[in-house]
């Protein structure tokens, strides 16, 4: 836009706003457009809009307004967020507990006998948890275990138990798994089992044989005395003391303080699950320890 037309725009706008001085107005009246502007404005100013009938119009508005009224509660952001969280929680809950997978847990000093859908038997020891899928049990016999359990498996398809450090596959047999975070033993009581440890190695265990998995290393199979462990006696073979103490705590509902003791030393032997005193004596004697008992608090120290 050139300068003249810019100046003219200013004059015109000021004229519309009634801001021109008498001299400026006189000059503007000479403008070739002036007459036409006056005529246009004179005409437009005689116009009006048909007024809105606010009464009937407001009634229409009320109808429209009340059909939408306020945002329904289920459209609010708070609800959406809450619903999302609830949905996620529900999915996690179902994935964890249902989806036809069943989990059995035992508390401290509690053990459970379970019968699996194929009538295999599991003796689940204290502070352990076992989960398996009931629905497709006929297709695959898979369980996952943390803690200690004895299995008496009826003949059938592959039977696989997964624990943190490996898995055991059997056809029909009975065996025991002790599974902790860094240490596990598998002992075979009857038939034959195949153990796959986390490092990818597979070992076969015959009746009366067991093996240990400790971290990434797997021991050679060793022989053990076959007895009915799960009822009376807890048996260990070169198990770290930390594991032995964990078992004691679980079996007798006690708290063990063994800060002064080297927990990496290994224990081979057994303690009776019927008597805490006998168990404490067996372990302390064979490991050259002393213990103090204050109700359910036990403190071990080196002799």
């Amino acid at each position, binding site marked *: 836009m050139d300068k003249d037309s810019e100046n*003219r*725009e*200013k004059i*015109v*706008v000021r004229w*519309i*706003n009634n801001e021109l001085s008498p001299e400026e107005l006189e000059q503007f009246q000479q403008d070739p*457009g002036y007459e*036409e*502007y006056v*005529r*246009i*404005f004179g*005409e*437009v*100013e*005689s*116009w*009006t*809009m*048909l*007024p*809105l009938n*606010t009464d009937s*119009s*407001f009634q*229409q*508005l009320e109808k*429209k*307004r009340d059909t*939408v*009224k*306020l*945002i329904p509660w289920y459209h609010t952001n708070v609800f959406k967020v809450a619903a999302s969280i609830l949905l996620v929680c529900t999915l996690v809950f179902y994935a964890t507990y249902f989806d036809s997978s069943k989990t059995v847990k035992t508390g401290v000093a509690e053990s459970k006998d379970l019968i699996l859908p194929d009538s295999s038997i599991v003796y689940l020891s204290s502070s352990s948890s076992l989960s398996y899928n009931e629905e497709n049990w006929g297709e695959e016999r898979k369980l996952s275990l943390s803690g200690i359990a004895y299995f008496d498996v009826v003949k059938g398809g592959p039977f696989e138990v997964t624990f943190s450090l490996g898995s055991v596959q059997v056809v029909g047999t009975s065996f025991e798994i002790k599974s902790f975070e860094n240490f596990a033993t598998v002992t075979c009581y009857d038939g034959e089992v195949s153990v796959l440890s986390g490092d990818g190695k597979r070992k076969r265990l015959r009746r009366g044989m067991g093996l240990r998995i400790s971290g990434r290393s797997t021991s050679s199979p060793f022989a053990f005395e076959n007895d009915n462990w799960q009822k009376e006696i807890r048996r260990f073979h070169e198990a770290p003391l930390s594991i032995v103490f964990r078992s004691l705590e679980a079996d007798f509902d006690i708290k063990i303080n063994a800060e002064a003791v080297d927990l990496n030393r290994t224990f081979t032997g057994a303690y009776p699950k019927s008597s805490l005193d006998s168990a404490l004596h067996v372990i302390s004697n064979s490991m050259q320890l002393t213990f103090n008992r204050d109700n359910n608090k036990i403190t071990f120290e080196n002799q």
Partner: protein
Amino acid sequence: MFEATSDWSTFMEKDDSVCLEKNYRDIYEIHANGIRNFMYYRCGNLQKAEDLAHETFVRLWENCKKVLIGKVRSFLFTTAHRLFLNQYEHEKVVLQFEKKTESKVEKESPEFILEEKEFKGQLETAISNLPEGQRTVFLLNKIDKMTFQEIADMQGVSISAVHKKMYKAMEKLRRDLKGLRDNKI
């Protein structure tokens, strides 16, 4: 242009709350006409214009807790402006206006009356043919007596942009009216 208050007092319905039915009704009485006109200048259809005005007031009701009563006018025009932009293509419009009744017709000659009538129709056509932005500024200023500053605030543009639109509108009207007259002859 309008402020949302966030303190707890927004949850109490004070005497001047827009959420009170009585206040809402008063606001409608005061502003509905202006909003309807604004929409009419833009879309050229009275029924559509009223629908848009209703929609604007529904938005006000939905936001009644957030809009302070002093900011209602600004909220309404801004909302109407946006609703229009969202909904309507720039269609060709044909605007018509009523004559105010206080005319001094008696003394005029029949020729003059005819000429006046003709001029009204020509001007209506010329205004309808203005680009939408120029048309709206021109009519809001001349019919609804809104100042250029008010129009600028409502549309969220600078006052000089509004001046420019007004000036362009007047120049185009002048040219088009001349064209209409010349064609007739």
